[in-house]
């Protein structure tokens, strides 16, 4: 039985969407309930900058992989 490697990629995308949702929620809470000071805004931008950096580095490696290749779930033994 063979499956496409892209399944793992789609699972990864779901995790990224959840990550973006919680990122938005955290920033929303900081902006709504916190003080909108220079340090607060700087921190939010720093967090977003590092997030973009992680995603950019990840994309650099992900884009080099052939996700359409098929992988076998049942290992094939040769006698």
């Amino acid at each position, binding site marked *: 039985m063979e499956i496409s490697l892209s399944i793992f*990629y789609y699972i990864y995308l779901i995790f990224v969407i959840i990550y973006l949702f*919680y990122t938005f929620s955290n920033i929303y809470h900081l902006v709504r*309930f916190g003080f909108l000071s220079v340090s607060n805004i700087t921190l939010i931008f720093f967090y977003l900058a590092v997030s973009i950096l992680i995603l950019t*580095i*990840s994309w650099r490696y992900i884009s080099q*992989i052939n996700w359409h290749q098929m992988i076998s779930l049942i290992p094939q033994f040769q006698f």
Partner: protein
Amino acid sequence: MLLRRHPFIILVRIISWAIIALLPLIFYLILGEIVAGFFTHEVFWPILVLFTSIYYLYIWLFMFSSFVDYYLDAWVVTNYRIINIEQKGLFHRVISEQRLYRIQDVTSELKGFFPTFLNFGNIYVQTAGEAERFVFKQVPNPYQVVSKITKLVEENKKFHNLMMAEDKIST
């Protein structure tokens, strides 16, 4: 007076997450030769890339969430009332307030090695209201804060008694 937890608390949390972030690197340094085969395998390498990406994204998210949780917990003491603002999780926020003249007792507690040397601790405010006890958690200079609150409570009680007396005379 706006109070938050001592910065040492958030520093400990961030350092903990930073140590967890270093675990894959330590793992690679110790088992580098054994796991080297995974980096060229056609199936394991893509999964490793995705897993590492998710791992660092979520550590960064948890670090930020820890800060947001720390930052949004606050205690405010004014001339008339105390306000307890507690962020219990991302979608759960509790705000309670109590008038100063209803405060019956204020106690401070310093417990542990770091709290003693860094001078932070809990303050327990006993009130006569629906929320019987307010707890200011891990705030800096608890003794000074208690002394300030006690002074404000005394002044507010005098003022409140004066207002009550004036109301009685006018009626």
